[in-house]
């Protein structure tokens, strides 16, 4: 029976990857209580920091994103994940702003994560890697910005898990955030989303090649489990309307169903492709750790149960954006953030963009999104003394 087909993995030569690395020597106290370190933060930058150091934008990536927002991915050679947004003359204008995009703690593109070698054992960390949180990721990013000498960010922006980091930044370091743009996000991960993540994790852990997480030491790779996790997750990033528009019930390279379990339907073929290419660029244990970080995220809980308290006294300018067809981080989640910001008398704008692209809309060509962001950033830039542009 046809199942998933995996191309031969490329050799990893991550020392040749573009971008920068920061080695943090002093240990970082994590939410789980571990003093973690030394560790590495891999990051990429775009544009030039101005002499006032006032034009820096921190770009926070999503669950399976990385620091290559606007570079070809070194493993897949595909365009950067936010090339729609980042570049000269684009919304995040690299001729005007200095963009920093770090790979999150626990990631697998150069920042220390479970696939890196634990100096104590000489083996990959695997499940001995400490469980990290969104706040830990943000703490690590703060160390990076301190290292770069950027005390105040013009803007922190990100979609999905990136939005969680944006909110955490705004709550933890309000004086370092002039403008905050959480897109398609939430102040806490919903039960439904935790449930989907658990399906993905169980798929990985059910793969015999996962080996209790020690697959790297044993020269194996749980590609089947990771691919199934990706397939399940990928459905949640789309919308019924988008799936129908793209695939409907169309058959894949055949005129009739085959009365078997081959990928008869285009949508099956598409999902299998999504799954099998994902394993090329992502580490299964990283997937476990980062989904867990999202599950644990609950900004109100970090502030005594009150989301408004998380933003008390904030002087940051917020632009909250959601998408009509996003059922993973639906608009009511964003509206809750807006209401909390209102309760904190914060300066907030909020737009729900009409689109059938689902959660993934933040990565796609959405003219209304670009227009809103362009206007918001321009207004903020004016207040920041960065001038105004058409």
């Amino acid at each position: 029976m046809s199942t998933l087909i995996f191309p031969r993995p490329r050799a990893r030569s991550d020392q040749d990857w573009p971008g920068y690395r920061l080695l943090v020597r002093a240990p970082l106290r994590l939410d789980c209580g571990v003093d973690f370190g030394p560790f590495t933060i891999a990051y990429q930058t775009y544009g030039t920091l101005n002499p006032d150091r006032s034009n820096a934008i921190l770009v926070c990536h999503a669950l399976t994103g990385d620091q290559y927002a606007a570079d070809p991915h070194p493993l897949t050679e595909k365009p950067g994940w936010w090339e729609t947004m980042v570049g000269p003359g684009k919304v995040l204008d690299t001729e005007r702003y200095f963009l920093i995009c770090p790979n999150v703690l626990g990631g697998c593109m150069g920042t220390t994560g479970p696939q890196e070698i634990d100096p104590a054992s000489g083996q990959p960390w695997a499940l001995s890697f400490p469980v990290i949180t969104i706040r830990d990721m943000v703490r690590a990013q703060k160390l990076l910005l301190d290292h770069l000498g950027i005390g105040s960010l013009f803007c922190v922006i990100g979609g999905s898990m990136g939005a969680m980091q944006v909110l955490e930044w705004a709550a933890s370091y309000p004086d370092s955030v002039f403008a905050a743009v959480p897109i398609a996000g939430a102040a806490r991960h919903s039960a439904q989303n935790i449930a989907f993540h658990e399906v993905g994790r169980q798929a990985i852990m059910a793969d015999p090649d996962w080996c209790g997480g020690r697959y790297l030491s044993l020269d194996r790779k749980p590609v089947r489990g990771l691919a199934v996790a990706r397939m399940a997750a990928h459905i949640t990033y789309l919308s019924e309307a988008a799936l129908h528009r793209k695939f409907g019930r169309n058959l894949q390279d055949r005129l009739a169903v085959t009365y078997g379990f081959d990928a008869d339907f285009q949508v099956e073929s598409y999902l299998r492709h999504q799954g099998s290419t994902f394993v090329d660029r992502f580490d299964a244990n990283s997937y476990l750790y980062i989904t867990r970080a999202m599950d644990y995220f609950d900004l109100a809980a970090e502030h005594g149960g009150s989301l408004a308290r998380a933003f008390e006294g904030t002087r940051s300018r917020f632009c909250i954006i959601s998408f009509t067809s996003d059922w993973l981080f639906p608009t009511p989640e964003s509206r809750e953030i807006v209401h909390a910001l209102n309760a904190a008398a914060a300066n907030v704008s909020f737009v729900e963009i009409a689109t059938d692209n689902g959660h993934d809309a933040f990565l796609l060509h959405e003219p209304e999104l670009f227009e809103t962001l362009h206007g918001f950033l321009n207004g903020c830039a004016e207040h920041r003394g960065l001038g105004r542009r058409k």
Partner: protein
Amino acid sequence: MAPSGEGAALSFGAAAQATVAPGAAGELRQDLRLIAEMIEPGSRVLDIGCGDGALLGYLARQKRVDGRGIELSQSGVNACVGHGLSVIQGDADRDLQAYPDGAFDVVVLSQTLQATHRPRRVVEELVRIGRRAIVSFPNFGFWRIRLRLLTTGRMPVSHCLVYPWYETPNIHLCTIRDFVALCDEIGVRVDRSVTLDRHGQPYSLDPRGSLANLLAEQGIFVLCGSAGL
């Protein structure tokens, strides 16, 4: 900018949707200009149903107010945010509860009250979150509307009330006298009122008198909570 269905518009007609460029002084719609005159420089202002931000933009530039807006239409919100205004997509029925008491010096509800689902609750919220509230609305007691109903026996359609009955967003129309009675009932004090004629020209008539209710096409009221903060 036309609303797509019942409750879809915060404004009461095409004429009410601000179409001038934000901040273009002098081109501000007459009732908005009168409202702007009532607002002190440097105040904190919430404009509910702010359209494309004409009033907020004007206030920001001319009076340096700290302005926020709420608008239902995506195009309106985008226009506002695109001009650097802080506006959220939302409506008066749903999105006022979160604001703390006295969050604003002035809350403006211009030509929107009649499109809300619970006008009484909305007025209560206005005077709770604003030290003052400025409310403007079309007067259904205006003599031309009365005459039209009397002579044609059909729901009035005018340059202010442009929608036929079956697709109007204006589900809670009232007269000036109705509005004053509501304020009395919920203990909201009317600090000031201005009535506008057909051409948007203001004239002062006692809002409790029957003349105002007959001659005014629109009313603008400045309210404050009974506590008189």
